[in-house]
């Protein structure tokens, strides 16, 4: 019943048995990979359950695709009834697709850490040598993959059903702005996760409370330019607002609230800001949670 395999100590990369101050052999398992590699391995491992869900959950296509399209259809028909330009239909479909990312950030990144704690996974994540940011990156990665499939399904269905005219100025630009939007959105997700770690159920209520107002101020179903400029500026701290406006400018050649280049720079700045703050905040709040005993306290 030997659990220690011979190949553990065979190579310098894997098995170099360093010694600690105590003379204890460094466990070979921790020597398998340098920290950056452990980060990547842990992130991919955590992304796995989400990707597996994509293939094993039978009704996801109905639940995650058909229902949002039905919700968007109401707005598309309203615009048609008002004889609005066809682009307005595209604007609604794009809004429906992007809001799936927003929902994923809120509930799949922020609240997920809360669920992980209740399930007993969080303490195992913290106990492991993998950093918590790697786990969250894995959640983000898994979330992005599943949500991309969902968003793509919504977009394709919308384009086919409602004849939405997507004519981007540049497909590369569209992809660039989309990736920038995702980076900023999931950076905010990391920040939310640290808040959930600290406030648990209270953070849950806060996010629930914010969900609908954010749909409104980010212009999910209408052009952002309709809103007063002050509200648009304030709403720009949410990457969804800027990302949606920028993508609409590129995809439909519409005028945005701000110039495209400004929005791209702002999205990049938000990414750096959110990721940086989240890293600091996660470290700080993990320490506080350890001190207060909240890291392993369930159902609170």
């Amino acid at each position: 019943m030997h659990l220690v395999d011979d190949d553990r100590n065979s190579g310098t990369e894997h098995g170099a048995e360093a010694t600690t101050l105590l003379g204890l052999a460094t466990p070979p398992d921790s020597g398998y990979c340098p920290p950056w590699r452990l980060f990547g391995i842990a992130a991919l491992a955590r992304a796995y359950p989400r990707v597996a869900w994509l293939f094993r959950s039978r009704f996801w296509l109905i639940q995650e695709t058909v229902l949002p399209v039905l919700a968007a259809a109401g707005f598309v028909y309203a615009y048609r009834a008002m004889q609005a330009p066809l682009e307005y239909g595209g604007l609604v479909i794009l809004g429906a697709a992007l809001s799936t990312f927003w929902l994923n950030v809120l509930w799949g990144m922020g609240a997920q850490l809360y669920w992980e704690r209740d399930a007993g996974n969080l303490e195992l994540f913290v106990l492991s040598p993998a950093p918590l940011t790697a786990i969250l990156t894995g959640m983000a990665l898994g979330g992005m993959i599943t949500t991309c499939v969902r968003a793509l399904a919504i977009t394709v269905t919308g384009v086919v059903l409602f004849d939405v005219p997507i004519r981007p100025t540049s497909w590369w630009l569209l992809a660039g702005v989309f990736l920038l939007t995702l980076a900023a959105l999931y950076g905010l997700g990391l920040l939310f996760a640290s808040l959930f770690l600290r406030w648990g159920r209270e953070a849950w209520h806060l996010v629930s409370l914010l969900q609908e107002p954010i749909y409104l101020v980010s212009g999910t179903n209408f052009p952002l330019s309709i809103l007063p400029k002050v509200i648009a500026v304030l709403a720009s701290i949410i990457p969804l607002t800027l990302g949606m406006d920028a993508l609409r400018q590129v995809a439909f050649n519409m005028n945005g609230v701000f110039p495209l280049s400004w929005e791209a720079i702002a999205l990049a700045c938000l990414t750096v800001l959110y990721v940086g703050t989240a890293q600091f905040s996660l470290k700080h709040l993990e320490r506080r949670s350890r001190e207060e005993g909240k890291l392993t306290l369930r159902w609170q």
Partner: protein
Amino acid sequence: MHPDWAIATEELTRTFSKPRRRRGRWGLQWWRKPATENESPRQQNCFQGEDSNSFVALDRVTLQVRRGELFGLLGPNGAGKTTLIKILATLLAPTSGRAWVAGWDVVSHPQAIRPYINMVSGGETSGYGILTVRENLWLFARLYGIPTRLAYQRIDRLLAVVGLEDKAHTRISHLSTGQRQKMNFCRGFITDPMVLFLDEPTLGLDVASARTIRSFIREWLHEHPGRTILLTTHYLAEADELCDRLAIIDQGRLLACDSPAALKRLVQRHPRYSLHLTPGANGWAPLRGMSVIHNLEVIPRVGGVEVQLALRDEGAIGPVVQTLLQQGAQIVNLTKLEPSLEDVFLQLVGRRWEGDDPDGVLAAAQPRTPNVP
């Protein structure tokens, strides 16, 4: 910290704050539930902190666990065992005092400790229901950087040990509680940790599975002499059977720490025997005058009389039996009364043990001593 110690604590204390009560607009306490019998025993018990809004879960615990040792923490529910394990596993910070695991301080160097440790808790519900047993174990192995091939080799071996190989490709949402517990047990060993914390690992397992797991723990330590296990349990038989040394903990305080045999010797300085004599036989009367007998107790029984003796010397049982036979007494049964950990607990804590005996091993193997001298 001594190089031979895998774990050490020094005056380790952990205090928890009770949830704050709601306060009125002007800071006045408008709702207050009086402290009554409605409160849990944990809230009622005497280990309140200096501040009435806090309670002490761990009270100045100092202990050392040697490398290669299987060390047990024995105590009733709410004694502070899990709190201690969580501090050592870097999941909880102590309020005061210090602790070291594998040579590093748990507060200042938690990241340095984590590659060396793993933990399994009884009744754990971790994992993802949508993944299979094998996939779940692989996921947790990857968090330690274990290569996939090696991880699967270990998973298959461990699943065979706990008899779960036929469930390897079953989603964990379809497993029973006991099967999940077995899976969690495997998770703890997959990373081949230097220090393993087992927090009531046999909780919820059937008798056969608990025995398999206990024998695997012994075997694993035998094959990996440098590894250390800290086991908490409220099963006396488990602690007695497995542990090299035991610490008895109650209400956050460490009451005693030694090998099970030494702890038992604490409560029984004189060897004790029980003799069952036939009905009507009163040949025991001359025993009262024997100087080799420290204490004698006669208990009438349905089938005769039971004489319980505490001897000054182990060898004195010969003359005692001889005296009884000379007086015409008929001895139906002669048993040496061994003290149990329950007796140790009773003596140290002053109340009876309330934990369960997982499979009645202790009860069957060791007759209870009603009054330990």
